């Protein structure tokens, strides 16, 4: 590793103390850009040059910055992975721009090749820096500090004492202080050198290695984990199979057979809201009362699923992520046959009153197929001729519908969303727009049939996730934090003491200090304290001193 390729330390690659005495302790030598090798170096020379560039601190800094900048569009533009509907909306509102943004992966920034390129380069740069340093740290783990330089007074911090004790005794006294302070010691003829704070480098390495570990944990989750969603109307059940899930996003190495075979029934969903005051209508609790069995044939258990309180089935977690109303409709067709009788999940379009929209498709109706686009209002209030919902709980539920007959277009063309109606083959029926209370019906004109708003149920939407990288990610995160604290709050420093007889027969003790990494400053104070302890230990007096 070159002078330029270190991470946050300057000490690691510095020459031994003899030369260090002259050099300032902390500043990195002005990072020289390694000169580009001439063609004479050949491919190997270029490779080495490129590697040095990549693992240099400056490159790492620039890559870090790039990573931050590259994340910005991910937060400002709608993202496919987070809100696909918003991306569709963006296509509609910016028809010219959207395809270009899509081509640049700007709707999927965090999975974009260029985003991956930045973080992979960064992690490569990190690895190129950390691995050699880890090797060096391991070697230095038992190494002794270098011998004291000939002229200790040339250290950045130094003080000269005089004492009546002889050199050996003075040195022994200083050594005792250093030993008590848990310095690693090396003694020689008339000198002692000491070093402390190896854990700073250890912490620094731990932090950067933990970041690499975090990347590995994320990859683990991406390969072996999966995410799924399922909307469940109360009173119904589903089994955790690919066909029963509304959405399924498997990791790259996940097959449908890997899904844990549990079944879940939503017995009841309950929501409560603040009923008075300025915050009226704000939700105060959601409870989805579930029964589940972990495997077919295993006795079912009950669970009260709440937000912040997921269900864990054999390592797979089930979360409550949404809720809404599913009005129940009963449709009798023109032939007098009941062709539809089930709850239809409606999706909330506003949160304050939970006004919800949905569609009813009745493909089996004769003579013509029937379709309805509806609005469900939990607490309907007449606001100057239009109905609106003023509270999210069903205090005065109403449904308002537009009725169609014709061809729903379900047997041909692209697959349809269950939440939208393709009105191309349909004609709107002239029905008076009268909101229905539970139990009320509308008779469709022209003998098309009858629709009854039979009541409503609530639904809960569940997220099902499995991520084997979770625990490794947590461990990596904790290791990173521990490394950060070690590297921030420990400074690596050396103390040197030389004692020799002075011209007047008294012993001269030179004390020098060098902080190998002290960006926060403060070594000068520690040095002053230590030197003072030495002075007291051999009952000397100060003759001169300096700090850098």
């Amino acid at each position, binding site marked *: 590793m070159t002078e330029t390729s270190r991470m946050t330390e300057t000490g690691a690659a510095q020459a031994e103390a003899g030369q260090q005495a002259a050099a300032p302790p902390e500043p990195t030598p002005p990072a020289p850009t390694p000169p580009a090798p001439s063609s004479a170096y050949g491919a190997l020379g270029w490779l080495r040059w490129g590697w040095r560039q990549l693992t240099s601190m400056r490159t790492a800094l620039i890559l870090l910055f790039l990573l931050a900048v590259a994340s910005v569009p991910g937060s400002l533009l709608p993202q496919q992975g987070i809100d696909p509907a918003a991306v569709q909306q963006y296509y509609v509102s910016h028809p010219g721009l959207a395809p270009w943004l899509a081509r640049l992966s700007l709707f999927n920034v965090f999975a974009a090749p260029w985003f991956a390129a930045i973080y992979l380069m960064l992690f490569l740069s990190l690895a190129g820096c950390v691995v050699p340093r880890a090797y060096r740290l391991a070697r230095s783990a038992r190494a002794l500090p270098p011998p004291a330089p000939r002229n200790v007074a040339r250290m950045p911090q130094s003080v000269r004492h005089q004492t009546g004790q002889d050199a050996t005794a003075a040195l022994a006294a200083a050594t005792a202080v250093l030993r008590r302070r848990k310095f690693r010691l090396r003694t020689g003829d008339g000198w002692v050198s000491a070093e402390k704070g190896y854990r700073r480098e250890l912490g620094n390495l731990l932090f950067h290695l933990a970041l690499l570990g975090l990347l590995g944990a994320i990859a683990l989750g991406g390969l072996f984990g999966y995410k799924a969603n399922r909307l469940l109307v109360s009173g119904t059940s589903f089994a955790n199979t690919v066909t029963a899930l509304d959405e399924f996003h498997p990791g790259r190495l996940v097959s449908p057979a890997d899904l844990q075979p549990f079944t879940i029934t939503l017995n009841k969903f309950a929501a409560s809201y603040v009923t008075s005051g300025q915050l009226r209508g704000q939700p105060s609790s959601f409870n989805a009362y579930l029964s589940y069995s972990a495997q077919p044939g295993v006795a079912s258990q009950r669970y009260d699923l709440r937000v912040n309180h997921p269900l864990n089935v054999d390592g797979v977690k089930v979360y409550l992520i949404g809720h809404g109303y599913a009005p129940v409709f009963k449709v009798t067709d023109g032939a007098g046959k009941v062709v539809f009788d089930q709850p239809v999940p409606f999706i909330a379009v506003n949160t304050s009153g939970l006004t919800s929209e949905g569609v009813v498709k009745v493909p089996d109706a004769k003579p013509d197929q029937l379709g309805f686009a509806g609005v469900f209002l939990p607490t309907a209030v007449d606001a100057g001729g239009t109905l609106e919902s003023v509270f999210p709980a069903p205090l005065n539920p109403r449904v308002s519908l537009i009725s169609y007959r014709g061809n729903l277009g379900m047997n041909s063309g692209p697959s349809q969303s269950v939440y939208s109606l393709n009105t191309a083959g349909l004609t709107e029926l002239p029905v008076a727009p009268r909101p229905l209370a539970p139990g009320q019906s509308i008779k469709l004109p022209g003998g098309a049939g009858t629709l009854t708003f039979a009541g409503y149920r609530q639904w809960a939407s569940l997220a099902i996730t499995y991520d084997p990288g979770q625990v490794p990610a947590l461990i990596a995160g904790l290791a990173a934090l521990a490394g950060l604290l070690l590297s921030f709050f420990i400074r690596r420093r050396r103390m040197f003491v030389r004692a020799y007889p002075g011209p007047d027969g008294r012993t001269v003790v030179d004390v020098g200090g060098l902080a190998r990494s002290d960006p926060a400053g403060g070594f000068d104070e520690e040095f002053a304290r230590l030197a003072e302890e030495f002075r007291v230990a051999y009952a000397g007096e*100060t003759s001169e001193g300096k700090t850098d």
Partner: protein
Amino acid sequence: MVINQGLSHLSDHFLMVTLVLYFLAVLAFAADFAFGKRSPAEPAEAAVPELVTAGAAGAGAAGAAAGAAQASAADLASATVASATVDSAKASGGTGRPATASRPGLRDASFWVRTGLGLTVLGVIAHIAGVVSRGLAVHRVPWGDMYEFIIAVTCVAVLFFLGLIIRYRPFRLGLFFLAPIVIIIGLAQTVIYTPAGPLVPALNSYWLAIHVTAITLATGTYVVAAVLAVVYLFADRHARRVAAGLPVRNGEVFRLLPTPERLDQFAYRTVVFAFPLWTFGIMAGAIWADEAWGRYWGWDPTETWAFITWVVYACFLHARVTAGWRGRRAAYIQLVGFGCLLFNLLGVSLFITGLHSYAGLS
């Protein structure tokens, strides 16, 4: 859980008192610059070279060592006033007093500075009372919406600042520090005030106490670091102009402030304190996100900007130990980080819809 309206109103009153006290403190600190008497005990920067020269001369007996002492005198000219006095005292064979003894104490500060500090301390007591009573009113940690968060952040910032000036005595930074705090609290009380209320279910978790507390502490500390960076940039510019012999304005103000080196060091230490807290806050948030939403990281806008903020502050920490990036460039990076923090707090919460849209301002 019933909201205690009486306590909630009490909290509002406490915070009004806080605002008034801080405002008076700003006036006092400003008055110090305008017409505070300079007590003779305060070491003026101009005196430093003489002190050091005296020390070096006293040590001049030993030939080789004298050279070292001269070199150190040159270094010292740019070092802090406080440590320079200690060193020169030591160099001239002084008693080797502990470093703290020579720091300018509160007794040496001017009347206006002492008034400002007294008002700040009273203000922060009222501030804490306001935060605590709000918490008691709502039966939870009092940082559940934007208004509560800003009040808590400013409280942390003032407390951290008081800690800084107790430890290092840069009393006169009070003006630059409290003025933005007054503006922030004033805006919080007028523009984004939210009455005390219960939490939405998404926030109803003990992780609120862990995650948001860490973020609050880190944010409050970052506020201090940002103020220090701004003051540093001005002080550094002043020092450069002085060194280059260019005309300067407000020389008196800068003479009374810590040296740029010292300000830079304060700022670094402040970030070093805040950064692990921020890291922990993000991690706690990830654990909570896993508990609430089923993934520990999902590039939600707030998460993304927390990450960007983390990266920029990491850049600052790396830049600070890299040649060619320390000093002004590092300070600018720190301010960019703070800008990201602010954008996350205000821009993302108010203008971008995400899972963290709890501001209570809809």
